[in-house]
Each structure stands twice: as structure tokens, then as C-alpha cells.
């Protein structure tokens, strides 16, 4: 083997190595680091003062964490469910051989290009108790109209859901639309010739055929929901009180403003486990299917 050939042989790995290094350190090394921190008594700075699993019972007993998880269950289920149902509905409407499909699709999808901070700022203004939607409805003649969810501890979480679904519903729409366009025309024609009514075709044939899309949409939205942070910061700052605290805001404030790094790391590990519980089985089955093709 000449020098040049040997160089050629090592080239692929040499090219891959910066990324491998980034992945090994920046993803898996850092995950390990955070897990280790969660086993220590770290406060403001990482220390190696080992306490085993003790941070975890402390976390589960923490009432702020409990509230964050409860809020997340409400927010997550409505956000994921809302984005999927609205997305499916939009995709079905768009798939009716309508005019201006391109324009409508553009309108439904543009929020995805925005930052969650922009979305939060705009919706905070629209939901403003004095000057927002409430004022609009009053000036339109509904004089006793009241809409103050954003300052109501019982309702503020639904403001997050509204703004979140507004931002991401276009994404699920696009996925369902691609799924609808991929369904075999022959089967649909056969059903139509048999005289099956439209809704029955959807309920019995089309929606079941979209099952893989439902799964993908669920996985994507679920991991977005767990990561949600910016939207909360911009829209409600976690308030009023603790009404819209989520695990992500708990992790940040516990670690960086309350200086309880060990506890914050434990909460980050719980978030990672939640994402992994959704993603790992999904990615595993996807990769295996790909190989068997």
C-alpha cells in the first residue's frame, strides 16, 4: 500500500471524526456528566460530594416539581392532542380538491418559522386582559365579555396550549397531508363505487391507513412538548404563581437561580428519560424497518 492509498483509506473516518468527537462529548459525555451531578450535593458549582440517589426522592417530594409535572400533563396532552386533531382536520379540508391550496397551506404553516419568543410576545398581547381580545369583543358590542385567562391561575395553562397549538398545528397538518396524498387511489375509488358515504370512507379506510403518520406526529409533538421552555418564558413566565411552571422551567430556575444544581440535574435526567421513553422505541423500530427493506 502506498502512502497515498493509506491516506485514502483513513479519509472517511478522518472526515467523520470531528462530528464523532462532538457527539461523544457534547451529547453522550454531557449526559453522563449531568447524571453524575444528579448523584452529588452540588449547589452553585459542580462538586463531587457523592449522595447516591438521594436527590431523586427529594425531587419527587418537591412541591414545585410536583406542580410542574401536573401542569405538564395538562399542557402536554392538550397540546399534543390539539395539534394532532386540528392538523388532521386541516389536512382533510385541504385535501378536498379545493382552490388556493398553496396560499392556505402557506398561511397555516408560517407560524412554524417563528421563534416561540415571538409567538409568546404576540399572544401575550392578544390575551392582554385590558386591551386584547376582551377589548375587541367589547367594542364589537359584547359589553360584558370577559377573557382574562392569562392572569387566572386556573386558566393560564390553557393560554399556553392555545399559543402552542397555533404555532405547531401546521406541522402535523403537513404530515397528515403527505399521508393522505400517499393513500392508494384504487382503494378509495372502490369504496366510492360501493356507495360508501364520505365520512364512512374517512372513518373506516383513510384514518386507519394514516396510523404510521399518527405515530410519527405523536412522537414529534411529544418531544417538543417536553422541551417547551421559550414559550412559557415569553408568554406567562411560569405564572401567575406556579400555574404554568413546566419541568423545563423548573430545571432552569432550580439550577441557575436557586443554585440547587444537584436537584436541577436530577430534574433534567427525568426529562431525558421521558423523551427517551418516547423516542427510543420509535427510532429503534424505524431503523429496523429500514434495514429490512
Amino acid at each position, binding site marked *: 500500500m502506498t502512502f497515498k492509498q493509506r491516506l485514502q483509506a483513513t479519509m472517511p473516518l478522518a472526515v467523520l471524526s470531528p462530528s464523532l468527537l462532538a457527539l461523544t462529548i457534547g451529547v453522550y459525555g454531557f449526559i453522563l456528566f449531568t447524571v453524575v451531578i444528579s448523584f452529588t450535593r452540588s449547589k452553585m458549582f459542580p462538586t463531587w460530594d457523592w449522595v447516591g440517589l438521594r436527590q431523586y426522592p427529594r425531587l419527587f417530594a418537591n412541591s414545585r416539581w410536583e406542580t410542574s409535572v401536573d401542569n405538564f400533563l395538562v399542557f402536554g396532552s392538550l397540546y399534543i392532542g390539539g395539534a394532532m386533531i386540528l392538523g388532521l382536520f386541516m389536512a382533510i379540508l385541504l385535501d378536498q380538491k379545493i382552490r388556493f391550496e398553496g396560499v392556505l397551506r402557506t398561511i397555516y*404553516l408560517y407560524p412554524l418559522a417563528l421563534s416561540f419568543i415571538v409567538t409568546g410576545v*404576540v399572544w401575550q398581547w392578544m390575551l392582554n386582559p385590558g386591551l386584547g381580545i376582551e377589548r375587541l369583543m367589547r367594542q364589537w358590542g359584547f359589553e360584558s365579555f370577559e377573557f382574562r385567562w392569562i392572569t387566572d391561575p386556573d386558566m393560564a395553562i390553557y393560554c399556553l396550549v392555545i399559543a402552542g397549538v*397555533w404555532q405547531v398545528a401546521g406541522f402535523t397538518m403537513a*404530515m397528515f397531508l403527505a399521508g393522505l396524498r400517499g393513500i392508494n387511489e384504487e382503494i378509495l375509488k372502490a369504496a366510492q363505487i360501493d356507495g360508501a358515504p364520505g365520512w364512512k370512507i374517512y372513518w373506516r379506510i383513510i384514518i386507519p391507513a394514516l396510523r404510521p403518520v399518527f405515530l410519527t406526529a405523536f412522537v414529534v409533538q411529544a418531544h417538543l412538548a417536553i422541551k417547551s421552555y421559550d414559550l412559557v418564558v415569553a408568554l406567562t413566565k411560569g405564572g401567575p404563581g406556579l400555574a404554568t411552571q413546566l419541568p423545563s422551567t423548573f430545571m432552569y430556575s432550580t439550577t441557575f437561580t436557586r443554585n440547587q444544581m444537584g436537584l436541577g440535574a436530577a430534574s433534567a435526567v427525568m*426529562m*431525558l428519560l421521558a423523551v427517551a421513553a418516547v423516542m427510543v422505541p420509535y427510532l429503534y423500530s424505524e431503523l429496523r424497518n*429500514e434495514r429490512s427493506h
Partner: protein
Amino acid sequence: MNAVIDAGAIADTVRRRRRSHLIGRIFIYSGLLLLAAFFITPLLVMLMTSFKTMPEIRSGNLLSLPTSLNTDAWRLAWSEACISVSCEGLNGYFWNSMKIVIPAVVLSVAFGALNGYVLTKWQFPGANLVFGLMLFGCFIPFQIVLIPMAKTLGFLGIAGTTPGLVLVHFIYGISFTTLFFRNFYVSVPDDLIKSARIDGAGFWRIFTRILLPLSWPIVIVAIIWQFTNVWNDFLFGVSFAAGTDQPITVALNNLVNTSTGVKAYNVDMAGAMIAALPTILVYVVAGRYFLRGLMSGAVKG
């Protein structure tokens, strides 16, 4: 006689079908229009509010038109509004974001293309495992890396700086760009590569002469995806950038929350428009590719 009855019955059915078809169409179009209103209203409100004066905002409502195209709020948001302690507007932070986005996008797209090439055309034992590990890297909640990343940036002496954020976005961007290019290059026939190798073409020649010329659709997808993600990032910006090195999303959040004097909603909205314009522009110019990028990031095929 029979024929006449039949014809009448058929005409009746046709008429009934047509009427139900018409009702269906009305339902479909009104649904589509209501949804369009739901999605477009916040953008219109943001735009209209940014052109109003504060007295106009106090007397009008969200959907009342501004009386004139008053650009004071835009000027204030761009160069005079107070963000935390300094009152120099958003413009510096806007350029910060550009300084972060451009190198981060170039680096992560270049490495993503090369990784995709190696993972599909220079298969080595364990290539699929590497890909699987990268794929999971796309989806980790970034809270899990905040603490060690803060330490590492401090150790490297780039904590709180623009180069630090470029590095962070590069690290967490390559998983996605690799995914894009890998899924794209999988469909390029291996025979093409084999015959080029027999002709004596090496690693780089095959990449630059054969794959790269085919790649521009996926390059656009990767650029749009990365541009949008990096521009819109808040968590890394707020965690790892300090003071005047912060990106626009962090500055916008600070602008809105700076509580000196009366709350100027028109300036807030102009600021939000400034933060949103680059990605909206990208979306309008290359929306089709944007969609394709989202799809190939999430569902294959």
C-alpha cells in the same frame, strides 16, 4: 312510461346529490377560511400594532387599523428602546444573531454533508450504530447538557461569547444535517460510486464531482432548517451569552420585560416583527423547501 319515471328519478337524485355537494363545499370553504383567520390574525395584529401610536392603542382595539403608517415604534425598537440597562434598541442583537447563525449554519451543513456521504458510501462496521446514536442526539432535551456545556465553555475561555454559541449550535446541529444528507445520499445508486472508484477517483473527487452537484435540493433544506433553528433559539442564548453578546430572541424577551416607564406595546410588536422578519423572509422565499425539510426531518420517504 318506465323510462320517463326513471329519468325523473335520476334527475331528482342528481339534484339532491348536487345540493348536498354544495352544502359540503360551503362547509369546507368556511372551515378553511376560519382556520386561515385563526392563523393569520396574530401576524396582522403584530403588524398593525407596530404602526400605531400609544393613544391609538388605548382607544382602539386589536383589529382597528392604524390611522397612518407611523414608524416611530420601529425606530424605537431598532435603535432606542431600553433592553436591561442599555437603551440602544435591538440592532446590535440582530447582528449578533447573524454573526452566530452564519458560521453555525455553514459549518453544520458542510459537516452534515460529509457525514452523510461517509455513512452511506463508505460504510464501515458500526456505521448504523453511529447513525442511530446521532439520530437520538437530534431529540435530546437540551436541559440535559446545559450544566456541563456551561462548564466546558468556561474551560475553553469562550463562555458568554458569540464563538461559544457558534460551537454549541454546531454541535447540536450536525445531528440534524447528517440525518438530512444521509437520507438523501441513500437514494444515490452505489454503482455510480463504484464505477468512479474503478476509474481511480478518490474520496474527495467522488464527493465534489458526483455527489455535490446532485445535492443542492438537500443543501437548501439543511440551510433553511439550520437557519430557522439557530435564529429562533432561546435556551442556549439565554444560558450561554452575556450582556451585549446576546442573540435577538433573548434581547426581545428582555425588551418586553424591561419595566421602565409605561409599557409600549407598539414597540414590543415592532421588536417582535424585527425578530421574526428574517425567518419569515426565508419561509416566503423558500417555503416549499422548508416544508420538505420538516418532512424529511420527521418522516422518511
